[in-house]
Protein backbone atom coordinates (compact mmCIF):
# COMPACT_ATOMS: atom_id res chain seq x y z
CA UNK A 1 0.00 0.00 0.00
CA UNK A 2 2.25 2.74 -1.30
CA UNK A 3 1.98 6.48 -1.43
CA UNK A 4 1.22 6.22 -5.15
CA UNK A 5 -1.55 3.74 -4.47
CA UNK A 6 -3.33 6.17 -2.16
CA UNK A 7 -2.78 8.97 -4.65
CA UNK A 8 -4.25 6.93 -7.49
CA UNK A 9 -7.36 6.20 -5.42
CA UNK A 10 -7.72 9.93 -4.74
CA UNK A 11 -7.34 10.83 -8.40
CA UNK A 12 -9.83 8.16 -9.30
CA UNK A 13 -12.37 9.60 -6.86
CA UNK A 14 -11.94 13.12 -8.22
CA UNK A 15 -12.35 11.90 -11.78
CA UNK A 16 -15.49 9.95 -10.99
CA UNK A 17 -17.05 12.86 -9.12
CA UNK A 18 -16.07 15.38 -11.78
CA UNK A 19 -17.50 13.21 -14.54
CA UNK A 20 -20.84 13.01 -12.77
CA UNK A 21 -21.35 16.71 -12.10
CA UNK A 22 -22.75 19.24 -14.52
CA UNK A 23 -20.59 22.05 -13.17
CA UNK A 24 -21.91 24.86 -15.42
CA UNK A 25 -25.45 23.96 -14.38
CA UNK A 26 -24.44 24.09 -10.72
CA UNK A 27 -22.86 27.49 -11.35
CA UNK A 28 -26.11 28.73 -12.85
CA UNK A 29 -27.96 27.48 -9.79
CA UNK A 30 -25.55 29.32 -7.53
CA UNK A 31 -26.20 32.58 -9.37
CA UNK A 32 -29.94 31.91 -9.06
CA UNK A 33 -29.62 31.14 -5.37
CA UNK A 34 -27.70 34.34 -4.80
CA UNK A 35 -30.35 36.37 -6.60
CA UNK A 36 -33.08 34.61 -4.63
CA UNK A 37 -31.40 35.38 -1.30
CA UNK A 38 -30.80 38.97 -2.33
CA UNK A 39 -34.43 39.44 -3.35
CA UNK A 40 -35.64 37.72 -0.17
CA UNK A 41 -33.49 39.93 2.02
CA UNK A 42 -34.63 43.03 0.15
CA UNK A 43 -38.27 41.99 0.58
CA UNK A 44 -37.75 41.26 4.27
CA UNK A 45 -36.09 44.64 4.69
CA UNK A 46 -38.95 46.31 2.83
CA UNK A 47 -41.56 44.62 4.99
CA UNK A 48 -39.67 45.66 8.12
CA UNK A 49 -39.51 49.28 6.97
CA UNK A 50 -43.20 49.31 6.07
CA UNK A 51 -44.03 47.77 9.44
CA UNK A 52 -41.97 50.35 11.23
CA UNK A 53 -43.61 53.17 9.32
CA UNK A 54 -47.05 51.72 10.12
CA UNK A 55 -46.25 51.44 13.81
CA UNK A 56 -44.89 54.98 13.89
CA UNK A 57 -47.98 56.26 12.12
CA UNK A 58 -50.20 54.41 14.55
CA UNK A 59 -48.33 55.74 17.55
CA UNK A 60 -48.54 59.22 16.14
CA UNK A 61 -52.32 58.97 16.15
CA UNK A 62 -52.61 57.71 19.67
CA UNK A 63 -53.79 60.20 22.31
CA UNK A 64 -51.24 61.26 24.88
CA UNK A 65 -53.12 59.44 27.61
CA UNK A 66 -52.97 56.08 25.84
CA UNK A 67 -51.51 53.42 28.11
CA UNK A 68 -48.11 52.37 26.90
CA UNK A 69 -46.90 49.88 29.43
CA UNK A 70 -44.25 47.54 28.16
CA UNK A 71 -42.52 45.41 30.74
CA UNK A 72 -39.57 47.27 32.12
CA UNK A 73 -36.24 45.69 31.24
CA UNK A 74 -34.13 44.67 34.18
CA UNK A 75 -31.43 47.11 33.23
CA UNK A 76 -33.87 49.99 33.42
CA UNK A 77 -32.97 50.93 36.96
CA UNK A 78 -34.94 54.14 36.78
CA UNK A 79 -38.15 52.20 36.56
CA UNK A 80 -36.98 49.54 38.95
CA UNK A 81 -36.39 52.10 41.60
CA UNK A 82 -39.97 53.26 41.51
CA UNK A 83 -41.62 51.60 44.51
CA UNK A 84 -44.98 51.22 42.78
CA UNK A 85 -43.61 48.80 40.19
CA UNK A 86 -44.27 45.78 42.30
CA UNK A 87 -44.78 43.43 39.38
CA UNK A 88 -41.29 43.81 37.99
CA UNK A 89 -39.10 40.73 37.82
CA UNK A 90 -37.58 41.07 41.21
CA UNK A 91 -34.64 38.80 41.65
CA UNK A 92 -34.37 38.44 45.35
CA UNK A 93 -36.69 39.10 48.19
CA UNK A 94 -34.96 38.86 51.51
CA UNK A 95 -37.41 39.03 54.31
CA UNK A 96 -34.68 38.82 56.88
CA UNK A 97 -33.73 42.38 56.18
CA UNK A 98 -36.89 43.68 57.72
CA UNK A 99 -35.00 45.73 60.26
CA UNK A 100 -33.21 47.69 57.58
CA UNK A 101 -34.27 51.04 56.29
CA UNK A 102 -33.91 51.93 52.63
CA UNK A 103 -30.82 53.97 53.36
CA UNK A 104 -29.20 51.21 55.36
CA UNK A 105 -29.94 48.60 52.75
CA UNK A 106 -28.71 50.87 49.99
CA UNK A 107 -25.49 51.38 51.86
CA UNK A 108 -25.01 47.64 52.14
CA UNK A 109 -25.63 47.18 48.45
CA UNK A 110 -23.06 49.73 47.38
CA UNK A 111 -20.62 48.17 44.96
CA UNK A 112 -22.62 45.00 44.46
CA UNK A 113 -24.46 46.16 41.38
CA UNK A 114 -27.79 45.67 43.06
CA UNK A 115 -30.36 48.30 43.87
CA UNK A 116 -32.79 48.64 46.68
CA UNK A 117 -36.20 49.21 45.25
CA UNK A 118 -38.45 49.64 48.22
CA UNK A 119 -38.60 49.08 51.91
CA UNK A 120 -41.78 49.18 53.88
CA UNK A 121 -40.56 48.34 57.34
CA UNK A 122 -40.85 44.61 56.95
CA UNK A 123 -39.65 43.83 53.44
CA UNK A 124 -36.67 45.00 51.47
CA UNK A 125 -36.51 44.21 47.81
CA UNK A 126 -33.19 43.88 46.10
CA UNK A 127 -32.92 44.16 42.37
CA UNK A 128 -30.17 42.92 40.15
CA UNK A 129 -29.26 45.16 37.29
CA UNK A 130 -29.19 42.46 34.64
CA UNK A 131 -30.00 38.81 34.28
CA UNK A 132 -26.49 37.93 33.24
CA UNK A 133 -25.01 39.17 36.50
CA UNK A 134 -27.80 37.86 38.66
CA UNK A 135 -25.99 34.99 40.28
CA UNK A 136 -22.77 36.86 40.87
CA UNK A 137 -24.49 39.88 42.28
CA UNK A 138 -26.75 37.81 44.43
CA UNK A 139 -23.96 35.79 45.90
CA UNK A 140 -21.89 38.87 46.59
CA UNK A 141 -24.84 40.67 48.01
CA UNK A 142 -25.82 37.83 50.26
CA UNK A 143 -22.30 37.44 51.49
CA UNK A 144 -22.53 40.97 52.74
CA UNK A 145 -25.99 40.58 54.11
CA UNK A 146 -25.12 37.36 55.88
CA UNK A 147 -22.47 39.11 57.86
CA UNK A 148 -24.93 41.76 58.98
CA UNK A 149 -27.82 39.75 60.26
CA UNK A 150 -28.31 39.35 63.94
CA UNK A 151 -28.08 35.60 64.77
CA UNK A 152 -30.50 35.98 67.63
CA UNK A 153 -33.15 37.38 65.34
CA UNK A 154 -32.58 34.65 62.74
CA UNK A 155 -32.92 32.00 65.41
CA UNK A 156 -36.15 33.62 66.52
CA UNK A 157 -37.43 33.40 62.96
CA UNK A 158 -36.74 29.67 62.87
CA UNK A 159 -34.08 29.61 60.17
CA UNK A 160 -31.07 27.39 60.73
CA UNK A 161 -28.21 29.82 60.34
CA UNK A 162 -27.10 33.14 59.02
CA UNK A 163 -24.47 31.71 56.73
CA UNK A 164 -24.34 33.09 53.21
CA UNK A 165 -24.91 29.57 51.92
CA UNK A 166 -28.19 29.39 53.74
CA UNK A 167 -29.23 32.75 52.44
CA UNK A 168 -28.07 31.92 48.96
CA UNK A 169 -30.57 29.11 48.89
CA UNK A 170 -33.21 31.73 49.28
CA UNK A 171 -31.95 33.39 46.15
CA UNK A 172 -31.28 30.36 44.00
CA UNK A 173 -34.80 29.10 44.30
CA UNK A 174 -35.72 32.09 42.22
CA UNK A 175 -33.88 30.72 39.21
CA UNK A 176 -36.64 28.55 37.86
CA UNK A 177 -40.38 28.16 38.13
CA UNK A 178 -41.23 26.05 41.14
CA UNK A 179 -44.43 24.33 41.97
CA UNK A 180 -44.50 24.53 45.74
CA UNK A 181 -44.01 27.71 47.76
CA UNK A 182 -41.32 26.36 50.02
CA UNK A 183 -37.58 26.45 50.26
CA UNK A 184 -35.07 23.75 50.89
CA UNK A 185 -31.88 24.20 52.82
CA UNK A 186 -29.42 21.34 52.67
CA UNK A 187 -32.18 19.14 51.31
CA UNK A 188 -34.52 19.86 54.17
CA UNK A 189 -37.70 21.77 53.63
CA UNK A 190 -38.21 24.85 55.72
CA UNK A 191 -41.48 26.63 56.30
CA UNK A 192 -41.64 30.40 56.16
CA UNK A 193 -40.33 32.17 59.26
CA UNK A 194 -42.88 33.03 61.86
CA UNK A 195 -44.80 36.12 60.93
CA UNK A 196 -44.15 35.54 57.23
CA UNK A 197 -45.95 33.80 54.44
CA UNK A 198 -44.49 32.07 51.41
CA UNK A 199 -45.77 32.79 47.96
CA UNK A 200 -44.84 33.50 44.42
CA UNK A 201 -43.85 36.81 43.01
CA UNK A 202 -46.14 38.18 40.35
CA UNK A 203 -43.79 36.92 37.65
CA UNK A 204 -44.13 33.41 39.03
CA UNK A 205 -40.39 33.04 39.04
CA UNK A 206 -39.47 33.90 42.59
CA UNK A 207 -40.32 32.38 45.88
CA UNK A 208 -41.12 35.22 48.20
CA UNK A 209 -41.36 35.44 51.93
CA UNK A 210 -43.50 38.36 52.84
CA UNK A 211 -45.07 39.82 55.92
CA UNK A 212 -48.76 39.14 56.22
CA UNK A 213 -50.74 41.85 54.53
CA UNK A 214 -47.89 42.72 52.16
CA UNK A 215 -48.39 40.10 49.47
CA UNK A 216 -46.30 40.67 46.37
Amino acid sequence: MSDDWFRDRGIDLVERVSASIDVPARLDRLHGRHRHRTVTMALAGGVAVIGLIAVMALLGRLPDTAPVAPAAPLADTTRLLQPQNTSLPVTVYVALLDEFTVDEATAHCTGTGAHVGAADGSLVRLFDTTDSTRRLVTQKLLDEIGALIDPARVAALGLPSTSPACLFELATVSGAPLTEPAIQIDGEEWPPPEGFEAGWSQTGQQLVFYSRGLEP
Partner: protein
Amino acid sequence: MHRETEPATTGLHVVRATESFDRFYLREYPQMVAVVVALTGSRWAAEELTQEAMLRAYRSWDRISRYDKPGAWLRRVTINLATSHLRRRVAEAKALALLALRVQTPLPAQPEPDAALWDAVRRLPKRQRQSFVLHYVDGLSLAEIADVLDIGETTVKTHLQRARQSMQQELGEEDIQ
Protein backbone atom coordinates in the same frame (compact mmCIF):
# COMPACT_ATOMS: atom_id res chain seq x y z
CA MET B 1 -18.69 42.09 -13.04
CA HIS B 2 -15.33 40.74 -12.14
CA ARG B 3 -12.47 41.22 -14.47
CA GLU B 4 -11.37 38.11 -16.26
CA THR B 5 -7.72 37.29 -16.19
CA GLU B 6 -5.96 34.05 -16.88
CA PRO B 7 -4.71 32.30 -13.78
CA ALA B 8 -0.96 32.11 -13.83
CA THR B 9 -0.95 28.45 -12.83
CA THR B 10 -2.91 26.00 -10.72
CA GLY B 11 -2.63 25.11 -7.06
CA LEU B 12 -2.96 27.15 -3.92
CA HIS B 13 0.23 29.16 -4.07
CA VAL B 14 -0.79 31.33 -6.94
CA VAL B 15 -0.85 35.07 -6.76
CA ARG B 16 -3.66 36.26 -8.96
CA ALA B 17 -4.49 39.86 -9.59
CA THR B 18 -8.14 38.97 -9.85
CA GLU B 19 -9.77 35.92 -11.27
CA SER B 20 -13.37 35.75 -12.31
CA PHE B 21 -15.58 33.94 -9.88
CA ASP B 22 -16.98 31.75 -12.64
CA ARG B 23 -13.54 30.53 -13.63
CA PHE B 24 -12.69 29.88 -9.99
CA TYR B 25 -15.94 27.97 -9.54
CA LEU B 26 -15.53 25.81 -12.65
CA ARG B 27 -12.05 24.80 -11.56
CA GLU B 28 -12.59 24.28 -7.84
CA TYR B 29 -16.14 23.02 -7.47
CA PRO B 30 -15.71 19.40 -8.63
CA GLN B 31 -12.44 19.11 -6.75
CA MET B 32 -14.04 20.29 -3.52
CA VAL B 33 -17.04 18.01 -3.97
CA ALA B 34 -14.66 15.06 -4.21
CA VAL B 35 -12.88 16.21 -1.06
CA VAL B 36 -16.14 16.45 0.88
CA VAL B 37 -17.37 13.12 -0.47
CA ALA B 38 -14.19 11.58 0.93
CA LEU B 39 -14.71 13.34 4.27
CA THR B 40 -18.43 12.73 4.75
CA GLY B 41 -19.37 9.82 2.51
CA SER B 42 -22.38 11.75 1.33
CA ARG B 43 -22.57 12.88 -2.24
CA TRP B 44 -25.64 15.01 -1.58
CA ALA B 45 -24.02 16.72 1.40
CA ALA B 46 -20.81 17.21 -0.55
CA GLU B 47 -22.56 19.11 -3.32
CA GLU B 48 -24.64 21.19 -0.92
CA LEU B 49 -21.80 22.08 1.42
CA THR B 50 -19.49 22.98 -1.44
CA GLN B 51 -22.21 25.07 -3.01
CA GLU B 52 -22.76 26.88 0.28
CA ALA B 53 -19.05 27.61 0.59
CA MET B 54 -19.00 28.83 -3.00
CA LEU B 55 -21.98 31.08 -2.31
CA ARG B 56 -20.12 32.66 0.58
CA ALA B 57 -17.11 33.14 -1.66
CA TYR B 58 -19.29 34.70 -4.34
CA ARG B 59 -20.81 37.20 -1.93
CA SER B 60 -17.38 38.40 -0.85
CA TRP B 61 -15.58 37.79 -4.09
CA ASP B 62 -14.27 41.34 -4.37
CA ARG B 63 -12.30 40.71 -1.20
CA ILE B 64 -11.52 37.01 -1.53
CA SER B 65 -10.30 37.28 -5.10
CA ARG B 66 -7.51 39.53 -3.87
CA TYR B 67 -6.20 36.90 -1.47
CA ASP B 68 -2.99 35.20 -2.45
CA LYS B 69 -4.73 31.86 -2.14
CA PRO B 70 -8.51 32.06 -2.55
CA GLY B 71 -8.49 28.27 -2.87
CA ALA B 72 -7.12 27.92 0.66
CA TRP B 73 -9.95 30.12 1.97
CA LEU B 74 -12.48 27.98 0.13
CA ARG B 75 -11.00 24.79 1.57
CA ARG B 76 -11.06 26.15 5.11
CA VAL B 77 -14.72 27.14 4.82
CA THR B 78 -15.73 23.89 3.14
CA ILE B 79 -13.91 21.72 5.66
CA ASN B 80 -15.50 23.65 8.53
CA LEU B 81 -18.92 23.17 6.98
CA ALA B 82 -18.21 19.46 6.53
CA THR B 83 -17.12 19.16 10.17
CA SER B 84 -20.32 20.87 11.34
CA HIS B 85 -22.33 18.60 9.08
CA LEU B 86 -20.73 15.51 10.60
CA ARG B 87 -21.35 16.78 14.13
CA ARG B 88 -24.99 17.39 13.29
CA ARG B 89 -25.30 13.93 11.83
CA VAL B 90 -23.77 12.34 14.92
CA ALA B 91 -26.14 14.34 17.13
CA GLU B 92 -29.10 13.27 15.02
CA ALA B 93 -28.03 9.65 15.21
CA LYS B 94 -27.72 9.88 19.00
CA ALA B 95 -31.13 11.49 19.29
CA LEU B 96 -32.68 8.78 17.18
CA ALA B 97 -30.98 6.13 19.27
CA LEU B 98 -32.36 7.75 22.40
CA LEU B 99 -35.80 7.63 20.94
CA ALA B 100 -35.21 3.95 20.24
CA LEU B 101 -36.60 4.38 16.81
CA ARG B 102 -34.01 2.10 15.33
CA VAL B 103 -33.83 4.37 12.35
CA GLN B 104 -30.48 4.29 10.70
CA THR B 105 -29.22 7.51 9.23
CA PRO B 106 -29.04 6.67 5.59
CA LEU B 107 -25.83 7.45 3.85
CA PRO B 108 -26.43 8.77 0.39
CA ALA B 109 -25.01 6.84 -2.48
CA GLN B 110 -21.40 5.95 -1.91
CA PRO B 111 -19.25 5.49 -4.97
CA GLU B 112 -18.79 1.81 -5.37
CA PRO B 113 -15.07 1.51 -6.07
CA ASP B 114 -12.77 1.66 -3.06
CA ALA B 115 -15.70 1.86 -0.66
CA ALA B 116 -13.72 0.03 2.03
CA LEU B 117 -10.87 2.49 1.69
CA TRP B 118 -13.04 5.59 2.00
CA ASP B 119 -15.00 4.12 4.88
CA ALA B 120 -11.71 3.55 6.66
CA VAL B 121 -10.65 7.13 5.89
CA ARG B 122 -13.82 8.43 7.53
CA ARG B 123 -13.06 6.48 10.68
CA LEU B 124 -9.73 8.26 11.10
CA PRO B 125 -9.39 11.02 13.71
CA LYS B 126 -10.47 14.39 12.34
CA ARG B 127 -7.08 15.94 11.61
CA GLN B 128 -5.68 12.73 10.16
CA ARG B 129 -8.74 12.40 7.96
CA GLN B 130 -8.52 15.99 6.77
CA SER B 131 -4.80 15.77 6.10
CA PHE B 132 -5.20 12.50 4.23
CA VAL B 133 -8.00 13.76 2.02
CA LEU B 134 -6.34 17.08 1.25
CA HIS B 135 -3.15 15.26 0.32
CA TYR B 136 -4.41 12.31 -1.67
CA VAL B 137 -7.71 13.60 -3.04
CA ASP B 138 -7.03 17.31 -3.36
CA GLY B 139 -3.36 16.84 -4.21
CA LEU B 140 -2.09 19.49 -1.81
CA SER B 141 1.49 19.55 -0.55
CA LEU B 142 2.32 19.37 3.14
CA ALA B 143 2.87 23.12 3.26
CA GLU B 144 -0.46 23.79 1.56
CA ILE B 145 -2.30 21.48 3.97
CA ALA B 146 -0.59 23.18 6.90
CA ASP B 147 -1.84 26.50 5.57
CA VAL B 148 -5.42 25.32 5.08
CA LEU B 149 -5.67 23.58 8.46
CA ASP B 150 -3.65 26.23 10.25
CA ILE B 151 -1.27 23.69 11.79
CA GLY B 152 2.46 23.03 11.45
CA GLU B 153 3.92 21.25 8.46
CA THR B 154 5.56 18.68 10.74
CA THR B 155 2.21 18.02 12.35
CA VAL B 156 0.68 17.41 8.94
CA LYS B 157 3.47 14.95 8.15
CA THR B 158 2.79 13.11 11.43
CA HIS B 159 -0.96 13.01 10.72
CA LEU B 160 -0.33 11.57 7.28
CA GLN B 161 2.05 8.90 8.59
CA ARG B 162 -0.39 7.85 11.29
CA ALA B 163 -3.26 7.85 8.82
CA ARG B 164 -1.35 5.58 6.45
CA GLN B 165 -0.42 3.25 9.30
CA SER B 166 -4.02 3.05 10.45
CA MET B 167 -5.18 2.36 6.92
CA GLN B 168 -2.64 -0.37 6.44
CA GLN B 169 -3.64 -1.99 9.71
CA GLU B 170 -7.31 -1.74 8.96
CA LEU B 171 -7.20 -2.74 5.31
CA GLY B 172 -5.31 -5.91 4.55
CA GLU B 173 -3.41 -6.11 1.31
CA GLU B 174 -6.17 -8.37 -0.02
CA ASP B 175 -8.74 -5.59 0.43
CA ILE B 176 -7.00 -3.18 -1.81
CA GLN B 177 -6.07 -5.28 -4.76
